[in-house]
């Protein structure tokens, strides 16, 4: 009896005993994290499916011979830089300086747009060389299939991120600005960067 009472009190005193906020965040930030976690699972599925296809198929092309690695590195540079500038935008918004936040947000959007432009160029080049979803000139069909699906899905996330950032920046410029709104958009943008870090390492470099 005593033991169970002590146990009960211990549970009530813990984070999960009720009346407390176990994650210590606002609901909107927590929901953004839940979204990011679910989206991370989607990309984990894609990357592992790609790994499986690559392991069971002989004759995977050597990426350095197919892709222009200088362009890919520049794209990575653009996205990482935009992510760093986004962090500064969030910090400026928290410090209560919307003007500076809008300036940093604009720089973030420029970085993301450069990334998208390079990706459009790369897709155009890739398709021009004869790559399709079901075949490609360099090796097994799964090579181009995983390229289009993974970079396409990531690119769509970048495009979505640019739309969100554009709306947030416009609203901030109009004075309808909340530090948390900018922070949530920032969380999503950093997540897009995180996904690219994985794609860059496992699709282009490994």
């Amino acid at each position, binding site marked *: 009896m005593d033991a169970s009472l002590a146990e009960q009190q211990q549970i009530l005193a813990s984070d999960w005993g009720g009346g407390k906020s176990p994650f*210590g965040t606002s609901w909107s930030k927590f929901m953004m994290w839940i979204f990011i976690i679910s989206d991370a699972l989607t990309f984990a599925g894609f990357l592992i499916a790609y790994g499986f296809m690559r392991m069971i198929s002989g004759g995977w092309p050597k990426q350095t011979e197919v892709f222009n*690695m200088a362009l890919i590195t520049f794209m990575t540079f653009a996205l990482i830089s935009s992510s760093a500038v986004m962090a500064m935008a969030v910090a400026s918004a928290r410090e209560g300086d919307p003007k500076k936040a809008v300036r940093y947000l604009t720089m973030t959007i420029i970085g993301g747009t450069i990334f998208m432009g390079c990706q459009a160029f790369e897709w155009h080049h890739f398709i021009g060389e004869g790559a399709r979803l079901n075949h490609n000139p360099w090796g097994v069909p799964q090579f181009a299939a995983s390229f289009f699906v993974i970079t396409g899905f990531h690119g769509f996330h970048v495009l979505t991120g640019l739309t969100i950032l554009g709306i947030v920046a416009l609203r901030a410029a109009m004075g309808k600005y909340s530090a948390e709104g900018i*922070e949530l958009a920032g969380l999503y943008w950093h*997540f897009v960067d*995180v996904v690219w*870090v994985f794609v*860059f390492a496992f699709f282009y*470099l*490994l």
Partner: protein
Amino acid sequence: MSHDEAHSTGGHKQYFTTWCWLLVMTLLALGMGYAPVPEGIRGALLVCITLAKIFLIASIFMHLKFERLNLVMLTFTPLVLAVILFFVTYGESVGSSTHFIVNH
């Protein structure tokens, strides 16, 4: 809220340092593709560099450093599930010639 104050003290300088580290690690990962490193070691190093980059972005840019441990642990779930899924499919791919895809 104490963690809000910690945000502002982190400041722009830390973001700049993080950015520099991320670029250095990106170049390191790229350079390994051209260096004469054995395939297995290259793969392991690449995974390490990638995890280090993810850790930096998540802890500093995404402020996980300032969040509660409960939330930090929650964000690890996709990584754990991905590792499990990888080893499940890896076992399937080893030595099963029935799965081989024919190149045409």
